[in-house]
């Protein structure tokens, strides 16, 4: 019962934030945090919770973003249509890739998804006349001109996607995923169709990431190859693992933390990314299970003293 207090608290904070925070810059950051929270936690469903480490998340995020961007740029399709479509396209990609990639396990899966993630960027380069190449497409329709409205939209999206993720993991479906993570052979032995669960979970994860990617595109008014590159996949994995693999909440929190860190580091434009990636390495070394488990157990120890 105590757990739901925390959720309610977080929800409340999420909802009332714009009433207390007047700075437009910070609200913009919070929107980004909400989006990244979905990026990271959707990865964690497959990576941490089911134990299938995928370096292909940029396929879904970028895929959703480009779906939205292309539809909006060329056909003026409005955001409330492109965003679900972005999710669907990403889900289709996840199905296609999952059917092949999830045949292999562990480290091999990571390699395969990494290689797969390199494909779409090359495609945007080959078809640069349509995709805008390295510059991407600009002038995408905004979700709303009012930043507070955009914030509430992003918060709603986070609650929706996060809610789906939390519901899945706390259900018996989630238990199956955990058993797959812990011992695939034993899971198969008790009759679980491991392959089916993996693919379905992969598709769900891709769908959520695609929706968030499409939302991101409309938020930035621009879509480019940056979110499609394998390097972005790597960043997503690192940010999520730094938060805490398998916790769903952990990656959301690390998303918030790291987005704010990134912005705070603006004072040193030259060294910003170096410090940022360095901090990630340090987090991984000091808290191998992630920030959220480390902080949670730290709080537990203090409380029980």
């Amino acid at each position, binding site marked *: 019962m105590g757990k739901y207090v925390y959720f309610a608290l977080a929800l409340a904070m999420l909802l009332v934030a714009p009433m207390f925070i007047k700075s437009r810059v910070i609200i913009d950051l919070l929107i980004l945090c909400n989006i990244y929270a979905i990026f990271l936690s959707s990865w964690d469903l497959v990576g941490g919770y089911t*134990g299938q*480490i995928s370096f292909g998340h940029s396929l879904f995020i970028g895929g959703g973003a480009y779906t939205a961007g292309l539809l909006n740029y060329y056909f003026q399709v409005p955001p409330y249509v492109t965003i679900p479509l972005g999710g669907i396209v990403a889900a289709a990609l996840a199905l296609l890739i999952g059917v092949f990639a999830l045949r292999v396990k562990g*480290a*091999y899966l990571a*390699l*395969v998804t*990494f290689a797969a993630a390199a494909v779409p960027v090359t495609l945007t380069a080959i078809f640069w006349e349509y995709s805008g190449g390295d510059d991407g497409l600009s002038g995408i329709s905004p979700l709303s001109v009012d930043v507070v409205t955009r914030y509430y939209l992003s918060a709603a999206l986070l609650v929706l996607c996060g809610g789906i993720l939390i519901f899945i993991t706390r259900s018996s479906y989630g238990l199956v995923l955990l058993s797959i993570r812990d011992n695939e052979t034993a899971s198969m032995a008790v009759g679980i169709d491991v392959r089916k669960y993996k693919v379905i979970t992969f598709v769900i994860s891709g769908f959520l990431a695609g929706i968030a990617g499409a939302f991101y595109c409309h938020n930035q008014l621009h879509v480019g190859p940056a979110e499609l590159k394998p390097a972005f996949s790597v960043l997503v994995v690192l940010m999520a693992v730094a938060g805490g693999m398998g916790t769903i909440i952990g990656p959301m929190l690390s998303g918030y933390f790291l987005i704010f860190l990134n912005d705070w580091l603006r004072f040193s434009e030259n060294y910003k*990314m170096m410090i940022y990636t*360095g901090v990630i390495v340090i987090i*991984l070394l000091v808290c191998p299970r992630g920030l959220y488990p480390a902080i949670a157990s730290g709080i537990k120890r203090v409380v029980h003293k």
Partner: protein
Amino acid sequence: MGLLLDIVVYGAVQSGIYVLLSLGFSLTFGVAGIFNLAHGTFYMGAAYLFYSCMNSLGLGLSLSLVVSVTGMGLLALIIQKWFINPVIHSGISVMIITVAIANFLEQVVLCTYGPVDRNLNSFIDKKLLVLGTVSIDAQRMLALGVSIILLAVLYIFISKTKPGRAILAVAQDREGAIFVGIDPLKVFFLVIFIAAILAGIAGDFIAPTIGARPDMWLKPLTMCFAVVILGGLGSLTGTVLAALIIGYSEVIVSFALSSYMSELVPFVIILIVLAFKPSGLMPARQSQT
């Protein structure tokens, strides 16, 4: 006919570089059971270190080569000792921490050298005529020559010397190797050192032809993945064959279609392998989770 010869020669050069790069990656996996995702960083780092040695420090060609390659070897030892060994029981953790380091080092290089591609001067600034009609940079033929020589040296080292045979032993049966008194941890250090040296040499010799960029560690890494998936683990022959197949495929696609399309080759090969024979490449070693 001229085109065919072009493909033969350019394919050989490309494959040679890929052999140097993927041998180390494959060896680390075959012997230590880990995927070092910072492997591409040795390739990139050597090129940049070489650049600095030549241009900023004014060291000669040979000394710059030695310094840059040895530097990568040392980097490998540091990564192994401080980052890989603490988590070596979990293959996933090794991948995560090494990719985090690779990411970080890319940013270090970016900060130090800026985002502009760095150009290195070719060792021999000439074009050669090979096999009668193929016009190719001397630098690329040099790279090919070095690849062949190093492959032979590595083969002799592994099959004839004591440390080399220790590597083989650990790859075949880690426990058995312990029984006969071989310390696997020492062998792991040796293997990652060799991997870094090979990758570093590849970087030094090919960078003059393609330039040095901070993100040049990503595409070769993807290629190494394809080699491991196609060629199977650890065995020299499988890796060399896979590197040859991938190298030649890329060159053929590059000539026939475009160089952009050739970037898709590693993935397409992985796809084909997965579609037709994924079980054939499941490792004899349990995959780590």
